[in-house]
């Protein structure tokens, strides 16, 4: 009875505060609004849509290659074109799909999961999207202008140095990626700070949704891994543009330096693009088996352990370079060790399913598909960690099979699980389940028919990155099978696009919580209002929406303790571990500076690429001016008191 009185009081109050909040948080409409928006939900969805476009581009590249390899000695594309295709495919999928896709989810989800009104640095968030978009445009613009990368996504020196790769193609790759590292680094810092400091009161680290553990681990890994790539790319461009000798063996440079730098970055990157996938799986499985995740603590620790151990395995990409036996045995042992946290997570998911009550919706089907594919990718990965065996398997189609089982298993399938799961929250409508099942089965069967025969090709001695192969070597049937699998997979993706297009307009209305899920984003309307939460929630449990009534109400309405935070553009800041309220963060509103700064950096890099050094100087000046504009003190009087307010 008292609850209903409280609810009525809450309703009146809510009506008033909602009006105020809408005035405070609404993004202006039209072109200006869309170019200046800093709303994490808008940015998150942009990230997702852009990444899916890159997925489609990378997919088209892959299918041209698969068609070329359907039979021996086919001439669909020239050797040059084939090299461009696999270089673009790898670069696109690794850098412009796999990681930004997950950034899209995290951008949309992190503030909703922690119960905040936006990310910690909303303008930095917008900046991170614009730099991602512009770097993708730089890469594909360069490709269309006749300089697509040809050195593979891994760009080994000395093949990519001036004498062996003249022209601008390697520069397009290097500048595009340098640009992208800016985006990814600031994005990761934004996630770290948002997760550590913007959790709503009561959401101690031990209560935060498991997805945040995986995003936090991946974000820390990004911050530590990317500098190695940045350094390698800068060295490469110094060699190519100014004639330095980092990679020039004839002048005392090293052929190994690039490999070490690249894989010190590159292997952690694999975990960076699968960890948030683990987080999606750990979120979706409990929802559809109606039971909390088995041993949250173990899974959270496993995420952290993967991110840390991932830094100790890079040289397992280099077992054929003639390293000493001591080095190879160390990196082999490290590679064995890093599979243990993954095994722990897999068993935790199996146990959750075992004791739960499965409801077979499409999002859950993708989780099952993930388990099947990822476990196979883990098992064949252990094989590649055994040094003598890896010397046979490395650089063959077995590795192509392995890494696609891992990346399709632990990135693409979780991403599709996430799309089916959160599409209703993003759009207010459900994706169609019947098309969803077609989508899943075509992709699942397609992925296995596509990638499984590649194991056999590796055993049969087929090397990677060949534009064709001779007849009579026993490779033809497996290649043809793989190509057919590729087309089946493509059909699955097309079904998704149809489903997406139809459901966006005609899908069933979702409501706040269509899955009966446990986390905070399902306590607010679908799609969420610009301010996310009318009252800042107070959390007393790990699965707030699954707890008994009192806690559920606390989460839903903010309860007695929940603050409406109507004093301007603000969100609460809490302590890092226990989430005790500590102060208020004053949030910036719409801004042109993120776009302007991103454009200025883009102009600078493009000028360097074209060796237009005066333009590069002008671009650098623009970067400095834009940064100054960004940090220019905001007009006072937007509501926050000086002692409690914090500037971005």
């Amino acid at each position, binding site marked *: 009875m008292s609850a209903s009185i409280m609810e009525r009081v809450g309703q009146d109050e809510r009506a008033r505060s909602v009006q105020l909040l809408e005035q405070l948080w609404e993004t202006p409409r039209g072109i200006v609004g869309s170019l200046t928006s800093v709303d994490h939900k808008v940015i998150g969805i942009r990230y997702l849509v852009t990444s899916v476009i890159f997925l489609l581009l990378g997919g088209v590249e892959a299918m041209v290659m698969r068609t070329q390899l359907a039979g021996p000695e086919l001439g669909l594309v020239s050797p040059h074109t084939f090299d461009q295709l696999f270089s673009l495919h790898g670069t696109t999928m690794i850098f412009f799909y796999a990681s930004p896709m997950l950034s899209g989810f995290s951008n949309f989800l992190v503030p909703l999961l922690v119960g905040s009104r936006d990310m910690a640095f909303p303008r930095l968030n917008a900046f991170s999207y614009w730099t991602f978009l512009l770097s993708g445009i730089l890469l594909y613009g360069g490709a269309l202008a006749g300089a697509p990368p040809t050195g593979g996504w891994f760009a080994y020196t000395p093949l990519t140095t001036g004498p062996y790769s003249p022209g601008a193609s390697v520069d397009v790759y290097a500048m595009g990626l340098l640009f992208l590292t800016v985006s990814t680094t600031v994005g990761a810092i934004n996630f770290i700070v948002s997760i550590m400091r913007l959790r709503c009161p009561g959401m101690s680290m031990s209560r935060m949704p498991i997805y945040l553990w995986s995003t936090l681990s991946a974000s820390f890994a990004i911050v530590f891994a990317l500098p190695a790539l940045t350094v390698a790319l800068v060295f490469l461009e110094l060699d190519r543009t100014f004639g330095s000798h980092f990679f020039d063996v004839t002048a005392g440079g090293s052929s190994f330096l690039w490999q070490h730098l690249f894989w010190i970055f590159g292997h952690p990157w694999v975990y960076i693009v699968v960890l948030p996938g683990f987080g999606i799986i750990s979120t979706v499985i409990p929802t559809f088996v109606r039971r909390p995740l088995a041993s949250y603590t173990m899974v959270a620790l496993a995420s952290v352990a993967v991110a840390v151990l991932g830094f100790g395995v890079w040289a397992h990409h280099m077992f054929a370079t003639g390293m000493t036996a001591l080095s190879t045995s160390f990196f082999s042992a490290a590679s064995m060790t890093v599979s243990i946290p993954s095994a722990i997570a897999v068993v935790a998911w199996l146990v959750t399913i075992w004791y739960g009550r499965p409801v077979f919706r499409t999002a859950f089907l993708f989780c099952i598909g993930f388990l099947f594919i990822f476990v196979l990718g883990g098992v064949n990965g252990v094989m590649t960690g055994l040094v003598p065996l890896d010397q046979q398997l490395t650089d063959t189609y077995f590795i192509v099979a392995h890494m696609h089982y891992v990346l399709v298993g632990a990135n693409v399938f979780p991403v599709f699980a996430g799309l089916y799961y959160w599409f209703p929250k993003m759009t207010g409508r459900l994706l169609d389940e019947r098309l969803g099942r077609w989508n899943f089965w075509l992709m699942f069967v397609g992925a296995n028919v596509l990638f499984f025969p590649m194991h056999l090709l590796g055993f049969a001695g087929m090397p990677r990155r060949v534009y064709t192969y001779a007849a009579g070597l*026993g490779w033809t049937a497996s290649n043809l099978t793989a190509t057919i699998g590729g087309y089946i997979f493509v059909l699955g993706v097309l079904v998704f696009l149809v489903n997406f297009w139809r459901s966006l307009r005609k899908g069933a209305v979702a409501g706040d919580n269509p899955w009966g899920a446990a986390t905070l984003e399902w306590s607010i309307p679908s799609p969420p209002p610009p301010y996310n939460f009318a009252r800042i929630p107070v959390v007393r449990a790990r699965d707030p929406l699954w707890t008994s009534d009192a806690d559920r109400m606390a989460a839903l309405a903010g309860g007695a303790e929940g603050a409406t935070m109507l004093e301007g553009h603000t969100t609460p800041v809490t302590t890092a571990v226990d989430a005790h309220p500590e102060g208020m963060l004053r949030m910036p509103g719409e801004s042109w500076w993120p776009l302007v700064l991103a454009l200025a950096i883009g102009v600078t890099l493009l000028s360097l690429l074209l060796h237009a050094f005066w333009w590069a100087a002008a671009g650098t000046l623009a970067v400095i001016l834009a940064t100054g504009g960004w940090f220019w003190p905001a007009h006072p009087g937007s509501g926050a008191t000086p002692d409690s307010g914090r500037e971005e």
Partner: protein
Amino acid sequence: MNHSMIPHLFPAIDTPSIFAPAGPIAAREALLGWGSAALGSVIFIIVCVVLAIGLWRRREVTTERADGDVSVIGKQEHARELRAIVIFGFVLPAIVLVGLYGWSISEAVALAARPQGQEVEVVGHQWWWEVRYPAEGVTTANELHLPEGVPVRLRVSSADVIHSFWVPRLLGKIDLIPGDTNNVWIRADSVGLFLGMCAEYCGVQHARMRFMVVSQPADEYAAWLASERTAARSAVTPTEMEGEKQFMEAGCAGCHTVRGTAAAGIEGPDLTHFASRLTIGAGTLPNTRGNLAGWIANPQHIKPGNHMPELPITGPQLQSILDYVGALR
């Protein structure tokens, strides 16, 4: 590119499977492959079975808690979950991995022993293999001849970018790295032809950077080596003599060496005993007169992007060069 006139490029060669080892190193690697693949398959099948049972097993009806809270798991249940995760997620995988690791290290140690034997140098070029027998002063290309059953030491390096030397039936990969030399050994325990190839992406014709390992009985091998040691056979017939002249003047000699003549170029393969080789263009075509004609007339058509230029030569000039080069046994 249409090679339909050649039904099979490598008629004498079986699938270069790593599971059909013909030497001691590949045999150890294959054993590790079979063992780990079998173990991995068993683990994978167990996981799939557990997943399937977990998804579809019959569940007893449970009563909900009075307060409707589904987020709390009983202490006993929680302990049961944790036990399963520790045993199946940590202890068992750790035991399996430690065992597998120990096995692979013991194999690696066994392979680390370096037997004495003849030394051969292999130098990778974009996109062909230079093979030298330094003690004999022999240089050839795209073919590694080995005496059956006798270990041979290989010193491998590169003249340009990184390549990787790989003969699936005999030896796992070893990279050819500019500015660095790697040492391995190889032994073929049966007579025959084994396909080798470059396994590190090295540019546009990475796909057509193959070679042949020719394992021969000791006497045949000795005879081959003795023949290779000699200078090139002198031109005898008038057309051969005309061909030699054309070879020197048309530009061939600028890149190719023919020992015993003025041709001393080092950009391309040594052609001193070219006619005794099995393939043209590093395993691109069988070494026949017709293929050679096509190759000299139009190398960029057959292997686009390779470093052999198209020389402006007439039909008769080509025929005489074919006579000359075709006689370099």
